[in-house]
């Protein structure tokens, strides 16, 4: 996959006639770092869900890595998703697996041999600075540590695209910065990063591309943008 995301005239209407996105045209280049900002209900999460084909648009086309997602067969979706890392605001860690197991299981799922798993898992756990917590369970970790584990799980498969929905929502400012540093490092190594966030301080400080959504439409799209809609 080439880390490219394109949307043409994308509209998404949920049941009950709820218009989440209206006529979105978007082009994110390989290796870009993009913030998606907007008030609650502006369509940020919906836009992200379209990228990993959790849902499909009501109108329009979504292309990821040159592939038209509408034409992607259901049986190919697992293979498509192996090149996309997703980090959720509520972490979505498996409670009865340790930190190590939570990350390793992604490699198991994609068929990486066991002997290779351990070294790759330890490498990413070191990178996000939770290796010393590898035998603990999610409920034994702080919010920041759980978020790091969620990031480790997303990047252990070396995806071309990393999506993150409110990664710093529940974290204190220092921890939030630490997390952003991790995302910046990942991006430097070539992964396209798209982060939906309400964190004005971080957005303004990082001077990356900012796409602002309001009522389901893009209201601004600026390189080195500031937080605002």
């Amino acid at each position, binding site marked *: 996959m080439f880390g490219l995301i394109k949307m043409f005239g994308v509209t998404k209407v*949920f*049941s009950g006639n709820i218009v989440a996105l209206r006529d979105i045209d978007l082009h994110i280049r390989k290796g870009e770092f993009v913030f998606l900002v907007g008030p609650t209900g502006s369509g940020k999460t919906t836009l992200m869900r379209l990228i*990993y*084909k*959790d*849902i*499909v648009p009501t109108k329009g086309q979504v292309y990821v890595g040159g592939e038209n997602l509408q034409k992607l*067969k*259901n*049986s190919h*979706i*697992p*293979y*498509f*998703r*192996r090149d996309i890392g*997703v980090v959720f605001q509520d972490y*979505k860690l*498996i409670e009865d697996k340790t930190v190590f197991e939570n990350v390793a*299981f*992604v490699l198991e*799922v*994609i068929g990486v041999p066991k002997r290779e798993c351990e070294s790759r898992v330890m490498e990413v756990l070191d990178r996000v600075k939770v290796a010393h917590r590898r035998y603990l369970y999610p409920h034994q970790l702080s919010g920041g540590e759980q978020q790091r584990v969620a990031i480790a*799980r997303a990047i252990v*498969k070396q995806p071309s695209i990393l999506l993150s929905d409110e990664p710093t929502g529940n974290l204190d400012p220092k921890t939030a910065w630490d997390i952003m540093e991790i995302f910046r490092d990942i991006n430097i190594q070539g992964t396209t990063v798209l982060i939906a966030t309400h964190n004005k301080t971080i957005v303004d400080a990082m001077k990356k591309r900012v796409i602002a959504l309001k009522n389901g439409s893009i209201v601004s799209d600026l390189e080195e943008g500031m937080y605002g809609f």
Partner: protein
Amino acid sequence: MSFIAIFTVFVTLSTLGMFGLLLLNLNYSLKMVQGQVRVTIFLKNGLSKEAIQDVGKRLSALNIVKDVKFISKNTAYRRLQEELGREKYILSTLEYNPLPDSFEVKLVSPMYASTLSRRVLSWKEVSEVVYAREIVDKLIALIGIVKKIGIAVVFILGLAALLIIVNTIRLMVLSRQEEIEIMKLVGATSWFIRMPFVIEGVFQSFIGAALSSALIFYGYVWLVKNIVWRFPFIPLVLDAKPILYVIVVVVIFGVLVGLFGSLLAIQRFVGGRSFVKKE
């Protein structure tokens, strides 16, 4: 592992197996009774030895006839004397032996009794055909009913076992739904997600089937030991082969139910279309 599921499968398959054994024994008893059903063909008086022999040959040549036995009038008379016992003095009042020559015919199936009767009544040598018509008709009807009940019971019990497995696996899937959703998001295929649940379902059914096989086998051995010497007149299947056949059918049935039940249970959660939400 759900012990309730294993126990329920065990109970269902044991009932199925015991019903299978019951059918087996009923069938065996019926076959024995069938074999005793005889058609008696009475011949006209005054037939020559050659004519009688010819009738015997013609009867033996029929493919519905299993065995033909000639009963001469003298043999018939002696039999009647034995049957009458102390009352045989009644026969001394007769000036001659009124009993005719006859053929006793065993058929391949009591179903053919009326067919044979209609056929031989048209032969000029035959005066009358007698068979326990009512018994034969009832026997045929009983065999038909037992087979139909057997099929219905197997179907109902099989369905019950399937529904139990489906329900158990579905509960397991629901309790691990979040994990399944994460697996779908990180790139697990349907089969990768399905396999542990299918293995669990088959394993539980197999354990249930193995336990029910043990109960069926040892239960039957105990039953035979206790019935044969107390009630020797009750015909029971004593050959191990048919019993083992019932057991093998029960185990295979159990495993198949486990396999299809778990596939059915999980399909809704990991079928291809479940990877994209319909919202």
